[in-house]
């Protein structure tokens, strides 16, 4: 053990990066829901929403790696590097770290298949991408379960806010899909709407 690992900063760094990673994963999940509906965020064009979804997911990877590495390197408790990826092998907090490892594995699978998307069929990529819906709740369970911080105070509020935001996002996604017109009727509907609309003088 070197001097750094015996101090407490790495412990705090691990907790802080974990919280930031949860926030990022929540944002990535919400953006993913928007991308899947081709929705727009404020005035951003759709490709920018997709770009944000992708870039924030890579940022989340960076924070997750820092989160894992600082936790492993920290000397306060002993966590083996392999137990960060192999579920339920850690001697410390076997259940909650195991759940974290599952969430990390699922997330990495989603990221890696997305990076290799050009080489995969769309269906294979999409099937793996659906794992996101499992990986977020698992990551959330790990966050709340393994950390005493998140079980009270403003951190608890943060966790509840994340969960509420994602629940709202999924509700929006499902309801929007239910309102979808069949493919054959989309153009007809838009044409009818455009012809009904009065010409706007001087409009863009």
């Amino acid at each position, binding site marked *: 053990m070197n001097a750094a690992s015996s101090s407490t900063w790495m412990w705090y760094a691990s907790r802080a990066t974990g919280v930031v990673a949860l926030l990022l994963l929540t944002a990535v999940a919400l953006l993913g829901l928007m991308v899947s509906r*081709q929705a727009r965020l404020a005035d951003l064009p*759709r490709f920018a929403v997709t770009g944000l979804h992708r870039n924030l997911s890579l940022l989340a990877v960076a924070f997750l790696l820092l989160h894992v590495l600082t936790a492993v390197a920290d000397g306060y408790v002993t966590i083996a590097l392999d137990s960060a990826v192999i579920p339920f092998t850690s001697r410390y907090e076997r259940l909650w770290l195991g759940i974290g490892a599952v969430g990390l594995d699922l997330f990495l699978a989603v990221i890696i298949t997305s990076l290799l998307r050009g080489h995969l069929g*769309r269906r294979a990529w999409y099937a793996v991408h659906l794992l996101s819906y499992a990986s977020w709740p698992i990551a959330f369970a790990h966050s709340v379960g393994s950390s005493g911080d998140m079980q009270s105070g403003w951190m608890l509020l943060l966790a509840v806010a994340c969960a509420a935001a994602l629940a709202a996002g999924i509700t929006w996604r499902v309801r929007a899909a239910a309102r979808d017109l*069949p*493919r*054959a*009727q*989309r*153009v*007809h509907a*838009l*044409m009818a709407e*455009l*012809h009904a*609309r009065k*010409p*706007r*003088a*001087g*409009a*863009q």
Partner: protein
Amino acid sequence: MTIPNEATFPVASPGSSVRPPASGVPRLLPRTPDGKPGRVPQDLAAHQGTHGSLPYRGGAGRLIGELQAAGLTGRGGAAFPAHRKLQAVFDAARVTGRQPVVVANGAESEPASDKDATLLWLAPHLVLDGLQLAAEAVGAGRAVLYARAASQGRRQGPLDSLNEALARRRDARLDRVPVRVVQAPPRFLAGQETALISHLDGGPAIPAFIPPRPAERGLGNAPTLISNVETLAHMALVARHGPDWFRAIGTRPEPGSMLCTVRRGDGAPRIIEVAIGAPLSVLLARSSSPVLIGGYHGTWVPASLATPLTLDNASLARAGARVGSGIVITLPPDRCGLIETAQVVRYLALESAGQCGPCLNGLPRIAAAMAQIASGRPRRGVRADVERWAGLVTGRGACHHPDGTARLVRSALTVFADEADLHERGRCSASRHAAPFLPVPQATARIEADWR
């Protein structure tokens, strides 16, 4: 793979007693005894009397070199070199170990065109010969003939007469691979290659993103050659008479002849076979009206610009046009090009598969704006809107539907700019009671089943 030297193969089939015909047109369409274009369908006996027996090459790959020497390009509109398409399928079959499929594409989903239906009606056996030769060349085990159901002013539907022709060939034991006739749904995009694959695989006739290309993974994931029916008919002639005969007419980069659908007034179009590179003026009406070249994904060209051109891509490029599938339409003087274009664009927008954003969101807006320009008293700035939207949708779909529509619209706004000025002052130069000239089907897809 090595392409065999075409000189090592006999140009005429061994048992053929028919001497090579004169190299001029018509080549594909039947001739009457005095050499004029015939209008009677050629049955198997008449076909064999004119063209002789079917010159199988006795092995896969062998015809490909001859097609390369002939310089045959696809007549479906894209003018892609035929030999490269066959080679891609041949190679994909070797790499994947899957037996290829050949599809004769006679969907002809462009409403203004009638040349493929006419060819299938008058000379079905030439197309079916080409289909067998193409199947042999790529080593295919089965073939599909994909044709539209409706035919303009003919008593018998083309599908019935094609099945009849295939039955005659079965009796004569001509065909080596079985041919299935499939009806193309009456959708504008039904002939697009990936839409065709989707339909033949039991799905809706809707375009998909490529890759994979049909040549590598098409029908049932097998390497698939999709060739326009006219291209196949030319293949049957190249196999019989050789590349030099084929090149005797046409231009050096674009040899041979092609079928054109010519509309110069109301009523049925004329299907004329011309040598590529022929003066465009032979296909135009004697008027100063603008010409639509290449159909509904084509380009309006003013008469003054069109008259000196020749019918080949090198020449037409000067007017920003392409030969496409050989549609040449002269606008009658009493019709308004903006009204005509607006109703075509409305049809094209309604024929969007509604799956890519630029097409789904862009084409209806362009169509609504064109309707405004056509109907008189358009609001200011609407032409600039159309220009901008046309630029925004181009190159961003799974297929080229938005690109082709944008091309048509932009050329209309350029060629009919004076007319659009007139419309802005509440007037129109066309006679008020003239019926729409360009043919536009009224039935568009309303439910998913309409794409099947």
